[in-house]
């Protein structure tokens, strides 16, 4: 495999884990626009453990996951009190505060970036990615997963049936934080260099798009979204890289094409590309009542 595609696959693994970190709270009804902040905490924790304390990766990655989870747990309580637009803004503000703090922390390089010596091979990244996929599918198959989706649909009724709404939300937010921490740690070890400018609002927006375009109704959605969003921009660059005449046009317009694609998906498949009904149809051949669930 060429280094180029190896690099893309590495990004894919990180993107999948990151997508699931935002998917878990979203599946229980919480939109998090602060993904970059949680990922930055994971990346800088791993980097600090690796560079500052000279720890090996089998400590830095779990360490990053635990620390990010702990921070997520603590801020989950005030943040989950907010609703709707307020939550989107609060998570966004949280990510900006994280970036603002890190840029002023000279111990981790401040604005000038931070070296991370240990290198994570593609093999390690894929172990974490596959582990995350299996874990999320397992979680959604449990009664806890049922509670998550019930809270997503109707908090009050879920509570009436005995679902601990706050517990469910805090748990998904915290587990999501842990996954974002892993994604950040893997990013740090994959690139061996991090700078806070990378963890900006665009990263938070893109990861939210992975899951909303992929679909939040099933665990397949974020996986599909992450794969699509990782490869699509690269495919649009292929003609240029292959040296085709006018190949650069496609590359130049790729973000416009991408934006148009987003708008089109929201028009034609507002619940994301992978819906519950689609998964059922692929699994069982067809669903008796075709209309059911397609838009619902």
């Amino acid at each position, binding site marked *: 495999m060429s280094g180029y595609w190896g690099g893309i696959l590495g990004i894919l693994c990180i993107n999948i884990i990151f997508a699931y970190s935002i998917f878990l709270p979203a599946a229980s009804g919480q939109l998090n626009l602060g993904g970059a902040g949680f990922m930055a905490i994971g990346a800088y924790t791993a980097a600090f453990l690796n560079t500052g304390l000279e720890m090996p990766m089998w400590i830095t990655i779990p360490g990053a996951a635990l620390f990010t989870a702990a921070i997520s747990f603590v801020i989950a309580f005030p943040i989950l009190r907010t609703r709707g637009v307020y939550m989107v803004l609060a998570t966004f503000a949280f990510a900006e505060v994280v970036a603002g703090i890190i840029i002023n922390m000279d111990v981790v390089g401040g604005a000038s970036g931070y070296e991370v010596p240990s290198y994570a091979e593609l093999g390690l990244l894929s172990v974490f990615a596959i582990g995350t996929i299996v874990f999320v599918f*397992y*979680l959604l*198959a*449990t*009664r*806890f997963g*049922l*509670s998550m*989706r*019930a809270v*997503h*649909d*109707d908090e*009050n*009724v*879920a*509570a*009436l*049936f*005995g*679902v*601990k*709404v706050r517990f469910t939300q805090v748990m998904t937010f915290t587990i999501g934080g842990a996954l974002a921490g892993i994604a950040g740690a893997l990013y740090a070890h994959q690139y061996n260099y991090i700078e806070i400018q990378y963890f900006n609002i665009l990263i938070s927006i893109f990861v939210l798009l992975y899951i909303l375009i992929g679909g939040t*109704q099933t665990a397949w959605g974020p996986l599909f979204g992450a794969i699509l969003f990782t490869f699509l921009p690269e495919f649009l660059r292929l003609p240029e890289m292959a040296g085709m005449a006018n190949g650069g046009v496609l590359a130049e317009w790729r973000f416009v094409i991408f934006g148009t694609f987003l708008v089109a998906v929201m028009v034609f498949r507002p619940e994301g590309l992978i819906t*519950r*009904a689609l998964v*059922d149809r692929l699994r*069982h051949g067809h*669903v*008796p*009542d075709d*209309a*059911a*669930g*397609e*838009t*619902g």
Partner: protein
Amino acid sequence: MDSILSFTEVHKSFGGLKVIDDVTFDVARGSRTALIGPNGAGKTTIFNLISGIYDIDAGGMTLDGADITETPIQDRISHGISRSFQNIRLMPHLSTIENVMLGQHTRARGMVDLFKPMGWGPGRRWADMAEDALTRFGLETYPGQVVGNLPYGIRKRIEVVRAMMADPKILLLDEPAAGLNKQETTELQNLLRQVSDQGVTLLVVEHDMHFVRSLCEQVVVLNFGRKIFEGTPEQVHKDPGVLEAYLGTGDAA
């Protein structure tokens, strides 16, 4: 009378407006009781007080001898209170069977049950139980379907089945027959009789007096947040206070 639910001098106001004003009544164990009254009489508010959506301002409420006045919303169901809603509130993105399994939640919310897969292995029994219930209530055709687009009458009945899965002592039904056609109403009545025969107490808010007369043996009438009558469906039509309440508002019962 052996009462399962009793309301004692309950008061509730919203922003100075008295919605429930000194209401006292008892629901007999195993009975089928109707709660009726003109629009705005406070019937749904009573349901929301019983299920814990609102807190009581003053007064008390006991269920099967236990004081539940202060019990938080998510714990009331384990005391044996389960309900359906005026506007169906099934989870639109869950399938029929998953909605029904949500009804089991209060019986399976220990940490082990929470993190056990439901589709296979030992957790499978919950799915089997839900499927059995659907079969028992004649809804076995729809288990895997996302409920969002199922017919109204079917969804109303699924809601009752979901409420039943919690093994309630008392089942609160908020306008169960509203919006149903004649055949659907009959099917629902059969379902409710089946439920009642299992010993579950029914408390029903309903406008359709024909439905009330054929299902319920006890009636409580509210008007402007006050209880104005308590008795049998036969007596209710002869009561001058009730007649005045209904004629006064122009709302024929």
